[in-house]
């Protein structure tokens, strides 16, 4: 499946033309390097032009892009080693959340991510990264493992929302989200969260109560999906683009509001055009956070995390 968004169309056309020329050159042994270079320069200009003027709604589409790297892609590209662990020890193992023990730079850590599926089958298996209670309870088990063995925690957030179905409700999805945050707040090891794609409301913040919260440049983070917001605000889900504007759900806005600590730049054309480079950027950003946080004492880490969230809120006192 290929999904080409409106604003990506001209770029994709150029990319097709370049690919054709390259193939032609290889097949016929002709030198088309000048034409190729020209088209590539054109592509570069076009990308810059388009990506300089992305609206929030474009970011929503990019964050949901079916070719965007997912949690396990980042883990594979960033970590030297990774061993996935399974199960909430309460009867379930939720494939929408993956977690395990990884080596990253000089660090040994617990990595937990929300995992979307690439093809239809995997997408269904992963429930579109909409975690059930057992997903958060698996995460909690791994948080406690991290605490016991003094391992820093990295979470990779990418979910449209927590699973809202009857089954999840019956097993306490709300409680699971709340307990997951609570467990993160109790940790005395360094914790870093990276919003890599969709930071979808409660389902996202359940894994993002960290000492440092980073966002990829084209990721989004929102209290409600723009479609849902539009349905309430304009009684019209098609007005999601306007809602996306109103919600201030981009990394830029979140940084301005002081709600995240760092925006990790993506390669020109967004993460899916160059997962490798993106992963390296995430890696070095995470390592820098870990270097800083590792200087802090266990109790100070917990208090730092408390204060980080405690001060959030805008109100007046009369």
């Amino acid at each position, binding site marked *: 499946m290929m999904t080409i968004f409106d604003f990506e169309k001209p770029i994709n056309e150029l990319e097709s033309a370049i690919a054709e020329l390259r193939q032609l050159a290889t097949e016929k042994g002709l030198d088309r390097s000048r034409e190729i270079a020209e088209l590539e320069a054109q592509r570069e200009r076009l990308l810059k032009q388009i990506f300089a003027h992305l609206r929030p709604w474009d970011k929503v589409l990019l964050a949901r892009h079916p070719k965007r790297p997912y949690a396990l892609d980042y883990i594979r590209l960033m970590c030297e080693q990774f061993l996935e662990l399974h199960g909430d020890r309460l009867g379930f193992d939720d494939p929408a959340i993956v977690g395990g023990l990884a080596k990253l730079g000089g660090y040994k850590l617990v990595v937990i991510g929300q995992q979307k599926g690439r093809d239809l089958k995997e997408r269904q298996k992963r429930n579109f990264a909409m975690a059930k209670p057992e997903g958060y309870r698996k995460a909690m088990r791994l948080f406690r493992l991290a605490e016991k063995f003094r391992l820093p925690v990295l979470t990779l957030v990418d979910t449209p929302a927590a699973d809202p179905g009857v089954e*999840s409700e019956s097993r306490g999805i709300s409680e699971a989200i709340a307990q997951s945050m609570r467990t993160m*707040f109790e940790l005395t090891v360094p914790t870093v969260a990276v919003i890599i794609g969709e930071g979808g409301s*409660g389902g996202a913040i359940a894994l993002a*109560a960290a000492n440092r919260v980073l966002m990829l440049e084209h990721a989004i983070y*929102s*209290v409600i999906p723009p479609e849902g917001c539009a349905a309430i605000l304009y009684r019209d889900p098609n007005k999601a683009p306007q809602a996306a504007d*109103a919600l201030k759900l981009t990394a830029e806005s979140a940084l301005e509001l002081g709600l995240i600590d760092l925006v990790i730049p993506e390669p020109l054309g967004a993460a899916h055009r160059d997962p490798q480079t993106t992963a390296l950027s995430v890696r070095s950003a995470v390592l820098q956070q870990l270097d800083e946080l590792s200087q802090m004492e266990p109790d100070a880490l917990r208090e730092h995390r408390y204060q980080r969230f405690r001060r959030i809120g805008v*109100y007046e006192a009369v």
Partner: protein
Amino acid sequence: MQRRAAVQANAEQWVQCAKCKKILFRPDFERGMRVCPHCGHHHRLRARERILLTVDPDTFRETDADLRPADPLNFPDYAEKLQKGAAASGENEAIITGTAMLGGYEIIIGAMDFGFMGGSMGSVVGEKVARCFERGAERRLPVILFCASGGARMQEGLLSLMQMAKTTAAVGKLHRAGMPYIAVFTDPTMAGVLASFASLADVILAEPGAMVGFAGQRVAAQASVGKPPANFQTAEFQHEHGMIDLIVPRKQLRPTLAYLLEMFLPEEAHAR
């Protein structure tokens, strides 16, 4: 003028049950704490009424009444909605907090008001809730919260979502101080409030028939195979599924809370 007031007074003497539609005599209805004597339906209470019905007489002292919502995102229609909410509820925000006595124990108490923008949690609600827990931890007082909320307040965007984390963190402070936290789920207790501080109480009580759930009913049904059960997302459903300790009729709430305080607090905590 006099005549018009009389007509109004007359009309206001009667009220219709929202469930069984029977006509009730308002003074009786109010004396019965807005529980329908015919069908037992628990009608919603104003936050302030709730507190006054719960605590020992003349002991409630409001705190943080000076906090007012801002409009940090300049969100469409938010300013207007805030005004309407204030007019409808008579309050400045969706929660009232303070200190009081209950059964002779000093407590921190909070009650949400669904009439103010659906009891939604923005920065002010988050701040007031967090202060309840912090104050409880500092002063070594128990915290009792009456929840009534549709969830996070969309109009403050990500700031609202962050209040889930902020209030959750504050619960941890109270917990480490060894102080009790009792939540009462009233109609409705949903979404961002249920998925944060509300679900983390030591003991969770709920009023009969209260809506309690994560997503809206429509979303839940769409996301599921098969039909939701008839009592889906009611207090009774959540009780069956182990998320609520007890369903307590409004009349028994006060003695139940007093018993819990007695069980959890040392004898010295009781006022002489």
